[in-house]
Each structure stands twice: as C-alpha cells, then as structure tokens.
C-alpha cells in the first residue's frame, strides 16, 4: 500500500489535527449495481437508439492501436459523421477502446478509468492482443484475454485493424446497443467479485480501492 493511501493524521492550516483514511474518505466503497431497464420496452428501445447515436470514446490509447484512432479524427476517415467523438476524461466518455496490448501496469490504469466512466458504458477490444495475446503471447507482463478483466462488448480482430475496420466496428456496436445486447457494464456489476479476483490475480501490488469512481 502506498504511503499516501495509508491512514494518517493531517494538520489543517488552522492548526486542527484530524484523521484521514484515504481509502474510505476519498473513494467510493459501494460496488457497482445493475442498471435496471426502463419502465416500458418501447422506452428502453428509444433509450438504446439514443445511446447508439452518441458514442463518446475515452481518449486512452493503450497499445499501438491508438495510432489507428488518429486518422479517424481527421477528414480522411472522419468518424464524427457517425456520431462518434473522442473525449479527454472518463467522466465524459461511454466507450472505452482497449487499443492493443495491455501490460499489467496499464491494466491497473485501464480498470480505474473504466470504473470512472458512467453508465451506460461499453468496451471494445481492438486487435488480436486483446483477444488472445497476439504477438505478445509469451510476454511476461501483458495480459492475454481482456474479457477476464473487463467486460468486452465487441472485438475488432486484426493486427492492427485499419481505420475502416474501426468504423465497421462502431456500426456493429450500434447494432448491438440498439438490440439491447451491449450489456457489458451490467455483466461487470453482476460478476463484480469474479472480475475483481481476476484483476487482483495479475496486479500483484493492488494499492487502490476495490471500486473507485
């Protein structure tokens, strides 16, 4: 556990001393909950249509795939015409693209970023590294199966997939969302213990709260 996360006595500017327990005081302890469906089926369908038409991507590139997202923001491929855009913070995003290999160190940050995103949220695994390890199949510090650690709604295969493949992936994700099948966030909430156990198995120095949005 890092020093800044340990329980300690802090002296305020006015001289009052008080106890701080960062894990309890600064972070949320409540585990995520399953988001219920709307009260009527047709309303849920409307919601899903609306969700599918506003895909906001977290600008977090984990591997070489991040370079494939740059052309999508420029006029040649122009993903913005499909209602897709990139956002700088997890709070504003609802799609997390794991764009390539994930080292254990990056996995830690990816988990924190994913948990900070607000529902509804989706995860795309981009490239073969997220599917079965790809060319990093025997590496000592990259994970081989992304779906053990984060709920993946859609995989885009390739090493690396071209920007066109990503555009096709966005269209496929929209179909999944409209069909009500992109339930990754709810799966994460339902199987929270299982995901946490898997995450802690590879992140040996777990120094953050279990759930930290």
């Amino acid at each position, binding site marked *: 556990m890092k020093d800044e996360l340990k329980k300690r006595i802090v002296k305020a500017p006015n001289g009052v001393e008080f106890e701080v327990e960062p894990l309890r005081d600064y972070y949320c302890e409540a585990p995520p909950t399953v988001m219920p469906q709307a009260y009527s089926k047709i309303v849920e369908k409307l919601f899903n249509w609306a969700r599918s038409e506003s895909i906001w991507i977290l600008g977090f590139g984990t591997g070489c795939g991040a370079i494939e997202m740059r052309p999508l923001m420029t006029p040649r491929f122009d993903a913005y015409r499909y209602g897709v855009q990139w956002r700088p913070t997890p709070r504003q995003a609802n799609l997390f693209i794991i764009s390539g290999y994930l080292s*254990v*160190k990056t996995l*830690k940050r990816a988990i924190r970023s994913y948990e900070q995103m607000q529902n509804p949220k989706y995860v795309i695994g981009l490239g073969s590294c997220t*599917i*079965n*390890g790809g060319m990093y*199949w*025997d*590496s*000592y*510090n*990259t*994970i*081989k*199966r992304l779906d*053990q650690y984060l709920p993946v709604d859609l995989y885009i295969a390739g090493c690396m997939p071209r920007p066109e493949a990503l555009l096709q992936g966005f269209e496929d994700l929209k179909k999944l969302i409209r069909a009500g099948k992109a339930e990754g966030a709810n799966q994460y909430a339902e199987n929270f213990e299982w995901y946490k156990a*898997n995450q802690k*198995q*590879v*992140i*040996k*120095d*777990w120094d953050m709260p279990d759930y930290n949005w």
Partner: protein
Amino acid sequence: MHELTTRLNKLFPLGELTEQRADLAFVSVARESLRPLLQQLRDQEGFTHLVLLTAVDWIEENQFQLTYLLSNRSEACDIGIRVMIDRDEANMESIHDLWPTAATYQRELKEMFGIDFPGSPRIDEEFILEGWVDLPPYRRDFDTLKFSEDTYAQRPGRETLDPAQHMKDQLYPVVEE
C-alpha cells in the same frame, strides 16, 4: 581508434579488443580499472557522452557482462567498455557521479537483471514493473513463456503454425490423384 587503445593500454591493463568499425571499438577491462578508465576517457580523451549502459547474461559462465558505450562527439567515434561481473549476488560500483544519466540505466539493470548498484539514486524504487515478485525478467533463467502461461488466463484454441510449412501448404497444395 588504434592510437587511442595503444595510448590507453599504457595506462590501464586492457583486455580483449574488438574493432567493430573504424569508428567503433570494444575493450574488456577488469572491474577495478573501469572507473579510472571512464574518468580518463571522459576528461582527457573527449568521450563526454554516455550513450548507454546495458548488460548481457552469460549464464553458462555464471557472469554478467556490463557494456558502457561512450561517444566522442567531435571525433564522431564510439568506444564500448566491457566489464564481466559475478552473476551470484551481482553488484557493481555506481557511476552516477560521472554521468547523472547512468542512474536511470542502473535502475533499469537492477530491476531487469537484478544487478545492484549501491549508492545510486533511487536504485531500490520500481522502475518499469509494478509489484514484480518473480526473478528479474531479463535473466536467462527466467522462463517467460512458463511465467505467462502460469500467470495470465489464456484463450483456448490458439494454434501456432510453422511459417515455412504453412506457406508451403498454402502455395503448393498436395493434389490428390
């Protein structure tokens, strides 16, 4: 390059000399004469830039080879100094006071090879890996495939093809009579 090594040989007992190119040579020295040699090269011979400091694991000889690569910018030539150290409880004198950048290389070697450099700044802090518990991963007795199979969940069904055989089968399929 040749004059330089002749000159240095008068001052220090130099070991094996490899002249890779006209502007690149490698010399082996004993661990005791490394520091005076580096100082001589830096202050008198114009090798002011430490290009890199890296290690090779000679597991069969039970030794680590440290390579200090120095560059002389005005002469546009490089010299590599090879030092062999014992592999068990590997440690080496720090040179961070000669080149501050060496501290970063030494941190990397501590983490990846387990070579200790006592006194080097932040040498005991994690460098790249977080929470590493196994053998240092660049050591040759660390089995990276076995570690990854034991540690990370694998997706079943992955098959590995021999590239030569696979291309042969693809390009020249066996025609059944």
